[in-house]
């Protein structure tokens, strides 16, 4: 049994699957991370990912091209991010409850729209999704080449966005403003920058990332939209942000670890299918997420102003 598992670890197929699974997670996790670094918890993530999955897919199904679908999904995601920011940043409402509300609203709206446009579809209709693109030269490297460099363009985008987000947060004035907004919003205002705009922008960009993460599932991993297909991935991303201590690099590591275990789980299922019911394998990702939060909770360095609304002209 152990030997079989080790054998799996050495196959390129396993690593390729890991990278595939990690792509939507890393996009969602980065999106949540951007929001939280600016001080806003975005529990709308599950709904926004559903919305992105539906919107991107529908764009293509209606005749648009794939990249247009991604842009459209990002736009819709940013739109819902704007709703979330309007409620939590401008009105200072509970970030927890607003996020849950956004999730309930966005997911049910996705289903409503899907049913409106495809009222009679019984077997889910399909699109031609993103195709794997073998990077010249690099894809010829054994194992690594197949795992890393024969993925779809969307996966490359997901992986590249990790250093990009890190760079913007750590090395640019904009990133400094975002981080400061999550640490002490009054400090941002007293340097002449509008906190509400910074936070809103961060939530919109973060939500766009989430929506692209959702779109990955319908446009790259699969080719159809099902009900309930996000299936808790958004919540897993929220857990991964905590696991990553709000660092993009660690978020990638955490997501990889997580995706690796998930890919292993799928293969172990086939090995042990007779002895262990499949439901227990499917539970693994959710239990792992809880475990991940527990492991890091003590060391977690929360952005100090996370969940703290900022109201202009408040009497201090």
């Amino acid at each position, binding site marked *: 049994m152990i030997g079989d598992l080790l054998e799996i670890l050495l196959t390129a197929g396993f690593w390729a699957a890991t990278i595939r699974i990690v792509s939507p997670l890393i996009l969602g996790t980065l999106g949540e991370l951007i929001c939280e670094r600016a001080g806003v918890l975005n*529990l709308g993530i599950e709904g926004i990912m559903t919305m992105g999955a539906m919107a991107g897919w529908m764009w293509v199904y209606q005749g648009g091209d794939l990249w247009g679908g991604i842009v459209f999904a990002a736009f819709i995601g940013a739109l819902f991010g704007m*709703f979330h920011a309007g*409620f939590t940043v*401008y*009105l*200072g*409402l*509970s970030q*927890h*409850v*607003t*996020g*849950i*509300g*956004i*999730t*309930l*609203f*966005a*997911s*049910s*709206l996705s*289903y*409503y729209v899907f*049913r*409106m446009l495809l*009222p009679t579809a019984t077997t889910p209709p399909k699109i031609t999704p993103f195709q794997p693109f073998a990077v010249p030269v690099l894809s010829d490297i054994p194992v690594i080449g197949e795992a890393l460099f024969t993925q779809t363009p969307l996966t490359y985008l997901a992986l590249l966005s990790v250093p990009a987000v890190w760079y913007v947060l750590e090395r640019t004035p904009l990133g400094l403003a975002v981080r400061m907004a999550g640490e002490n919003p009054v400090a941002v205002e007293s340097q002449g920058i509008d906190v509400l705009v910074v936070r809103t922008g961060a939530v919109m960009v973060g939500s766009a990332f989430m929506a692209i993460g959702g779109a990955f599932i319908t446009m790259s991993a699969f080719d159809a939209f099902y009900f309930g297909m996000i*299936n*808790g991935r958004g*919540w*897993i991303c*929220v*857990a991964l942000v*905590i696991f990553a201590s709000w660092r993009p690099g660690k978020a990638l590591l955490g997501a990889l670890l997580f995706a690796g275990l998930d890919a292993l789980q799928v293969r172990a299922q086939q090995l042990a299918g007779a002895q262990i*019911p499949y*439901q*227990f394998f*499917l*539970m693994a990702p*959710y*239990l792992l*997420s*809880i475990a991940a*939060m*527990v492991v890091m*909770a*003590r060391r*977690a360095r929360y952005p100090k102003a996370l969940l703290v609304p900022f*109201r*202009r*002209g408040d009497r201090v």
Partner: protein
Amino acid sequence: MRIEARQQVEVWRIVLAPILAVLAALVLGAGLILWAGEAVFASYWALLKGALGSSFAINETLTRTTPLIFTGLAAAVAFRAKFYNIGAEGQLYCGALAATFFGTGLVGLPPFLMIPFLMLVGAIAGGAILIVPVLLKTHMKVDEVVTTLLLNFVILLLVGYLLEGPWKDPMSLGWPQAAPIVDEGIWPPLLAKGRLHLGFVFALIAAALAWALMRFTVWGYEIRAVGLNASAAGFAGIGVNATVIRTALISGGLAGLAGVSEVAGLKGYLTLDLSPGFGYAGIAVAMLAQLHPLGVILSAFFISAVYVGADAMSRTTDIPTYIADVLVGLSVLTILVSVMLTRYRIRWS
């Protein structure tokens, strides 16, 4: 834009808030109805008639109100302590699991003992599953929203496993469902016709008890104080962690009762589709009620009417039934704003 706290919060504002929120949700929902090519008023009229237009419809709406009161109370009590229990869906299934475990032949008791016994084990199971998230929150500061949400998926998979495996009823012709609850444990119907059962009365009693708890008792005082200002509560000597844990157990217990109610009162046996999201809708119920236990009765009735009415409406129009979920989601957002406007005023300048 400037947000100012009001000096006084008048009662009429508090009463008006949910009404405005519902109206706002209906107006926003009207856009979707127009998109479906239907007339707004006629559609909403069909919804209303589907929910309340006949004694059968009212019976059905009250039947659906029952679990929503329980899950609404679960959220209302927990949210008072700022413990965001979003796991009522999973706790509901835990209650149903416990009722199934004990109520399908394991224990034999006369009805007047069996019914309370199943409620008790259901409530305990619902509360027990919250122990891990609440201890993680109080002792390790792990956000309870994410843990309770993730547990919903785990519990549903567990139910799936049990129903396809060890608990599968051999008489069910291949459907994944558990053996039926023994007759002694079944909650009797309230009326000769229709599905409404004793659980509705239990739900009303639960709401009254929750109201009394919050309003008159030391525990209620402590729950409110912890929710409003945990550090002042702790300074005054209120055990903040103990209060949060206690609140979580009460909340989980209430959600567990919703599961018992559906299994022992409505269906008679456990299935995988026992709850079409009662746990999540409970959040909307609690928010519309502004976390007031007696208000939960009204708002549960309203949400139930939306679901039952939307089913009927979609049969006669081209509007997908998902309109009900959209309206519920929207009302969580609109009630947030309208409640805020009871306490604050927005100045544009």
